[in-house]
């Protein structure tokens, strides 16, 4: 019993130490910020970061402004959702190349376009909620990430 208790304490201690170190080494806390460089931490997004730096929106919108909902709950749920699945995909290496936005995140970016430009494009939107329409980026594909042409 005593040996087991010591062993458990030891293992939990090792996990705690290793976990804290890994969190620091991976710059884990940066993901809680709005700093766009955090998105390029894991290398995959480097090209997307670079093309954002050259895009027309670089001075007005960072990663999170387009890729996260603008309400508190939605923002943190989206962060947690993407954080977990991105980490899983990159650790296991199981993801397609070039990477592809998921439908859920696509809805987020469309919502972000409308958050700022909603008034401007209001007359273009379908009369009924959920009606058939093109995404803004269908034509404006290079506003967030330049050099696509």
């Amino acid at each position, binding site marked *: *019993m005593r040996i*087991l*208790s010591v*062993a*458990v304490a030891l*293992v*939990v201690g*090792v*996990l705690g130490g*290793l*976990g804290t*170190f*890994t969190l620091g*080494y*991976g710059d884990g806390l940066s993901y809680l910020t709005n700093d766009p460089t955090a998105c390029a931490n*894991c*290398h*995959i997004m*480097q*090209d997307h970061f670079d093309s954002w730096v050259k895009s027309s929106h670089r001075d007005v919108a960072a990663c999170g402004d387009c890729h996260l909902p603008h309400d508190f709950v939605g923002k943190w749920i989206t962060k947690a959702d993407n954080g977990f699945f991105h*980490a899983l995909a*990159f*650790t296991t*290496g199981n*993801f397609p*190349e*070039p990477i*592809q*936005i998921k439908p859920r995140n*696509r809805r987020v970016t469309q919502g972000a376009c409308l958050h700022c430009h909603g008034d401007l494009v209001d007359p273009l939107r379908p009369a009924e909620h959920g009606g*058939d329409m*093109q*995404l803004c*980026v*269908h034509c404006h*594909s290079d506003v967030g990430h330049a*050099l*696509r*042409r």
Partner: protein
Amino acid sequence: MFKKAPENSNRTASGRARAQRGNVLLLGLVFVVAVAATAAVTYVLITMFTHKQDARQPFVRVVEVDEMTTDPEPWGQNWPRQFDGWKSTSGGEFYGGSSAMPESKLEQQPWLKRLYAGYAFSIDYREARGHAYMLYDQGVTERITQKPQAGACLHCHASTTVLYRSVGLEAMGEEVTAEKLSSEFNMPAVIRGFEELSQQPYQDVLAMLYATPDGTPGENEPVFPQAPTGGFTGEYAGQAVPADHLPLGEAHPVTCIDCHDPETMSIRVTRPGFMQGIRDLAEGDGDASHLPSVEQWRAGSRKEPYDPNKLATRQEMRSFTCGQCHVEYYCANKTTLTFPWGEGLTVDDAEQVWNEMEFPDGTEFYDYKHGETGAKAFKAQHPEFELWSQGIHARSGVSCADCHMPYEREGAMKVSDHNVQSPMETLEPGHPCPQRRELRGLPHAL
């Protein structure tokens, strides 16, 4: 259960034993979970470390390459993944000998023989093979071995920039030194050299190419076997070339240096034919809506001629490098290599250019006079760049390389597949476009 005084000691003992067993179980469970979690965290830490290492050094430059290094082997030491991909264009093995040549289209489709009567394509016309074979197959095709062809053919079948630069410098009255050949690309000299050589006999220019330094003095073992001198119907038809008749040096099919700057590795245009062709396109008024830098140049002052190496976007360059050769052209001995782009990139535009063109001797332009009817005919070569320009992919900003050299991920590294081939070989059936997959499933096509 411990509130009440125990009724008999037996039950107390068994209760205590049970509680202890429960504690042991709980502790054991925590132990197992903590061990598993520690293993998982360690795994994450190790992959993180590996990816950080990958990202730190995308490549190690173990040998120097410069503008003289047409030999791909030193490049292969620095960029082994790309080099392996390039070698894979041979299909894994390089088959020598005439029996291993790909199937003859003339035998499959006998009408072609009649259609091309009077033209070299009626003699020998086979299925094309990968990049690795371009120089070898040109060296053994009976179009070359039975008919005198021009040196301009090598514009697209060999790594010729050093030869062109060297001949160009000489023609411009400059002294040719190793320093001048290796330090800068010197496009004017390359263009001049190409002009000097384009109408000389093919075999002479090939011999000069063998004698041109390739950046690896003393090493003359080519990556792929070289075509026997005189081809398979010429001097040494069907037999091994005698040991005392080996070529003087190495000649290479299109290699690293033909698309990459040896200093920065960025992609570039090196071919005089494309430089002139894209300039003609920019200066004309043909549709170039899929080429933003051309449109931008047209809208500007036009003081300097359009230069793709200075003005094109990276995404355009990923098609331009291919467009140096995969185009419609005239390339025989009556005039220099010409891309017919002055009026635009459609087939009608090309036809108009050819119709209005004259050979330097003032006679009417044509590709060949038909052997039976005597009609002067145009023959389209392989206008892949022009056909791409007409399509939805060009309009949507998808380049040649996006599908023919798709990106692959190796750890934190992103490598484009240098085994250039049909995307049908790499994409699974029904696989969406690698570049613009977000367009999939949308209600309307463009």
